[in-house]
């Protein structure tokens, strides 16, 4: 008898299903648990109070990223609470035997950047972390999702989670992206289309020619923001691109084990005839660079667009938009392009990988950032930093007048002192434009690294297609 065709999600789920009592959620086995300093302390306290150990320290790994300074690492950390939190994760890891990629380690970085670059993130795995952007790892065809601190304690104690199987939502991106349009624009366009709650209860599986053509870095950008569309996880089936990225990485299987693993991974993609609970199809040929204008990631539009008018909406939505535009200080009907900026932030787990650094540098090479603008380029990990420096990208940024920092979350979450000041406008390659997310009273526009870099040159929100391909031709800048 032929087996029932299954989706990628169903295959991973079935493979990790341990047991379930009638009416109770499944006990799902977890292959890899990523830990960082902000959401874990209370979980370790819980373990201690129960007198429990970490059940599988070898399937657990920790780093420090959220509250870590991105300035000179030899300087003392002035923020007393941040210092205490960073000391605590180190102490917790030592006590419980968890490998810690901490301050001073060449492999430290944003948790969702280091997992893949170390080869820890592999197809078919279940991966969790006390962080909603764990969805990033789904780019490898792993079921990866964010959990709360109670669940962190559960995973530390049992290496499993109680879970109900999510529904599947196929997001098919057809066609081919135009030059100047990238992975960030795909995901911002999807969220603008379905809304920030559109994927609730579902796991996205991204399919289609435009997705297949993406590099691993770009796939991670797409999956990263699944949570902004309400989905707890995003998935992309593994393929040759995935295997090529993983081959030779520190924790990836080697030798015969590699061949076995690849053979296993090849069986993961969704079977022909398998069905999804929901499907949306987007024409990739027609996507433009996207920018957000409001206070949630669903309030986004193509860069050629105009800010919508509350008058056109239903009463409830009208008030939300009015409030968002009041906070942002933006006028309905105005073009999003040309809006004035104070700060540009290039970094985060969405767009802090080497390809993002290269994309930003391709625009900034031979150009200078606009006068009075503060431009922060923050690599996603120390390895990204090193790679970028070996390619001379740091010199490109510095020559252009941008700051080049140590790795960390930085202005994505504004916990480490890198932040917008009240009322300031920032264009950011991160993932959240919530009120105050990048600093109390700060106003964020989300965009791709190309768009952010182009905007850095002009000091206003700028369509990168007006600059791309015109590198080293300063006249193209003046013409803008």
């Amino acid at each position, binding site marked *: 008898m032929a087996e029932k065709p299954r989706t990628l999600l169903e295959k991973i789920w079935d493979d990790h299903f341990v047991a379930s009592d009638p009416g109770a*959620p499944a006990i799902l086995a977890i292959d890899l648990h990523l830990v960082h300093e902000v959401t874990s302390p209370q979980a370790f306290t819980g373990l201690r109070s129960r007198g429990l150990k970490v059940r599988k320290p*070898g399937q657990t790994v920790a780093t420090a990223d959220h509250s870590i300074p991105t300035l000179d690492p030899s300087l003392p950390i002035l923020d007393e609470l941040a210092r205490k939190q960073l000391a605590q994760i180190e102490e917790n890891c030592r006590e419980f*035997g*968890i490998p810690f990629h901490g301050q001073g380690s060449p492999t430290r970085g944003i948790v969702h950047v280091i997992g893949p670059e170390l080869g820890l993130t*592999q197809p078919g795995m279940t991966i969790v972390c006390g962080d909603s952007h764990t969805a990033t790892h789904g780019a490898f065809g792993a079921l990866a999702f964010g959990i709360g601190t109670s*669940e962190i304690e559960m995973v530390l104690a*049992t290496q499993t989670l*109680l879970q109900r199987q999510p529904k599947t939502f196929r997001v098919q991106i057809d066609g081919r992206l135009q030059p100047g349009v990238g992975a960030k624009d795909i995901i911002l366009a999807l969220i603008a289309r379905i809304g920030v709650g559109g994927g609730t209860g579902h796991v996205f599986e991204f399919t289609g020619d435009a997705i297949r053509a993406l590099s691993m870095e770009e796939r991670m950008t797409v999956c990263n923001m699944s949570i902004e569309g309400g989905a707890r996880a995003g998935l992309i089936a593994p393929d040759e691109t995935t295997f090529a990225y993983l081959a030779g990485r520190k924790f990836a299987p080697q030798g015969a084990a590699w061949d076995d693993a690849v053979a296993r991974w090849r069986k993961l993609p969704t079977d022909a005839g398998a069905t999804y609970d929901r499907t949306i199809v987007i024409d990739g040929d027609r996507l433009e660079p996207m920018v957000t204008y409001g206070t949630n990631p669903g309030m986004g539009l193509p860069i050629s667009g105009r800010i919508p008018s509350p008058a056109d909406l239903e009463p409830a939505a009208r008030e939300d938009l009015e409030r968002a535009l009041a906070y942002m200080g933006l006028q309905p009907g105005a073009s999003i392009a040309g809006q004035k900026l104070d700060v540009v932030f290039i970094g985060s787990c969405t767009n802090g990988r080497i390809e993002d650094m290269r994309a930003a540098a391709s625009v900034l090479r031979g150009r200078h950032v606009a006068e009075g603008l503060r431009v922060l380029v923050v690599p996603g990990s120390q390895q990204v930093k090193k790679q970028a420096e070996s390619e001379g990208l740091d010199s490109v940024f510095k020559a252009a007048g941008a700051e080049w920092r140590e790795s960390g979350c930085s202005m994505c979450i504004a916990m480490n002192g890198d932040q917008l000041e009240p009322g300031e406008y920032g264009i950011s390659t991160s993932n*959240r434009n919530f*009120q105050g997310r990048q600093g109390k009273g700060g106003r964020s526009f989300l965009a791709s690294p190309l768009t952010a870099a182009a905007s850095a040159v002009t000091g206003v929100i700028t369509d990168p297609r007006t600059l791309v391909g015109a590198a080293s031709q300063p006249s193209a800048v003046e013409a803008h």
Partner: protein
Amino acid sequence: MPEPFVSTTSRVISIPRANIDTDQICPARFLKITDKANLADALFFDWRFTPDGARRVPPSFIDEPVNSGRQILLVGDNFGSGSSREHAPWALRAWGIRAIVSTSFADIFKGNSLKNALLPIVVTPERHAVLTALLGDNPDGEWTVDLEAQQVTLPDGSTFGFELDPFARTMILAGTDEVGYVLGQLPAIEAWEATHPARVDTREGVTAR
């Protein structure tokens, strides 16, 4: 260890906004704590205070004196989106909130709330509109949220039922601890592990501190 929770009777605070994210519920700078204490003050902090620290005038929702001590929130769609921080339900619970009524909740927030015996009660958009109108007419009426009966009783005595994950309900009613429950199934976990060798060993060659 959680305390058993069965029902509560309280007046209601209305926050008629959609997509309230966890950065609003508990801003990130309050995430540097390493315990769960004092988060009541962080709740909706930036709605309550201006960037220079002054209390907003008029006071924002939970700072309105009449709302002090109320345990039930009526909020717009997709409550709790964004970050996975459990600090959001911790802050709500610390302030005294026991139940939240909305048309939908973000997945991670919902899970985190249930782990903290904070009830996410989902109603249809139609019922939500009725409840909002009712609260407009009778802002100080008491509602009873009964988890045992899975029912809300309104000030006029009318009732409506709600769904909640049956497992979570049992856990909250009894104050049972989920880690204890899963550890009780260790043999099944060990049996799974025996046939599924670990895919990685994170300790290999890691010396850096």
